[in-house]
């Protein structure tokens, strides 16, 4: 009979190199699922939020209902949100994505709308005087000027989505949340800590990445002071 190996896995330590090397594939798969769910949810959220914000800007009466509905959606707890959508999507990744999309809407719509409203009236009139139609005005003047405010919302929405994906563990599509959930049931400390740290790393990295993108696509906001 061989003696049980005396390594950090056997001792169930929080920080464990052996865990990282033996479970590399599991961790990579979880990170991939986490990223996939987050990216799809944020992109779909953006695709829904931009038209909603533009509509609310065009027709003032639409702003109230749009903001009210998205705010109510935001109040619904994540665990409850996933459960409410359960009859529609069943136990699937689409369920998690749909929940995350609904959450991101409040943050995105509010910020994009604030950005659109902040475009100076003189700027719009100048563009109209140059013969810009409503569509060209929206695409080439209003939306670009709303980018900084929209990006602020996008960053908050993305960071929140990364942390909310973990709750998806309840339906088995939680990315790193799955590892945390499984680790909780088996008291596997290294797995819980590693997955949690990876979540935070992904959130911070995503935030910095979006900050970089914002810097790249809004050249007019920099250099004015330089």
């Amino acid at each position, binding site marked *: 009979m061989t003696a049980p190996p005396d390594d950090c896995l056997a001792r169930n330590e929080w920080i464990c190199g052996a865990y990282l090397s033996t479970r590399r594939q599991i961790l990579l798969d979880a990170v991939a699922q986490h990223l996939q769910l987050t990216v799809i949810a944020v992109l779909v959220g953006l695709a829904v939020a931009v038209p909603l914000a533009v509509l609310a800007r065009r027709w003032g009466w639409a702003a109230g209902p749009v903001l009210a509905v998205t705010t*109510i959606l935001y*109040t*619904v*707890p*994540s*665990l*409850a*949100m996933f*459960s*409410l959508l*359960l*009859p529609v999507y069943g136990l699937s990744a689409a369920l998690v994505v749909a929940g995350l999309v609904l959450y991101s809407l409040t943050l995105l719509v509010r910020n994009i709308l604030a950005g659109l409203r902040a475009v100076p009236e003189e700027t719009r009139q100048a563009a109209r005087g140059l013969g810009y139609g409503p569509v060209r005005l929206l695409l080439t003047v209003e939306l670009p000027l709303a980018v900084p405010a929209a990006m602020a919302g996008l960053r*908050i929405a993305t*960071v*929140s989505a*990364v*942390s*909310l994906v*973990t*709750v998806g*563990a*309840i339906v088995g599509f939680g990315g790193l*949340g799955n590892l*945390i*959930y499984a*680790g*909780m049931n088996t*008291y596997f*400390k290294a797995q*819980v*800590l590693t*997955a*949690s740290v990876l*979540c*935070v790393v992904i*959130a*911070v990295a995503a*935030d910095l990445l979006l900050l970089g993108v914002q810097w790249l696509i809004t050249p007019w906001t920099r250099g004015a002071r330089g």
Partner: protein
Amino acid sequence: MNTLAEAWHWLGDPAHWTGDDGVRHRLAQHLVLTVVCLVISCLIALPVALVLGHLGKGGALAVNISNVGRAVPTFAVLVLLLLTPLGRYGEGPTVVALVLFAVPPLLTNAYVGMREVDRGVVRAARGMGMTGRQMLFQVELPLALPMVMNGVRIAAVQLVATATIAALAGGGGLGRIITAGFNLASTPQVVAGAVLVAVFALIVEGIFETAERLAPRWVRGAR
């Protein structure tokens, strides 16, 4: 719509309201958990924010704590705490995780509210010979109150919503009705639990809204 009807039916069954797993008990647990966490978070966050706001220091700290707080999944914090020695103390990990979650919005709102008080008014108060303490309690805090209360409101609603996560880690509260429903593969029960939590969150939001409307004009601010 069939599921909603079944969920309604589930809620209508008196058997589901009594006992240790019943709605009434879970609702009480949820309420206690939320109130306890809100009070603790306020006791921690508000004094710090008010003093920092009064001194005009630590703005970057307040904002950064808020951002980091958003990036850390509450579920992960809860499970991490559960595996530490603290995990032996019943609801201990849940309370700590929820407090950590509620402190950032309280801190940021209170700090920003204090800094947004008209500097002219503050200088006038100093010119009248007020001490720092008098300025804080008689001038700055009353003027910052709408922002401070807005932070409390955000924290309260988020706490109600997030307290459901405790159920994932075996804690009490309305979340347990949802997780139990998942385990029984009973969609009506899951939906019923979700509706209960959502309604609870909206009621809390409504209470704050009403309190704000009924409050004297100076509390509401000039918005």
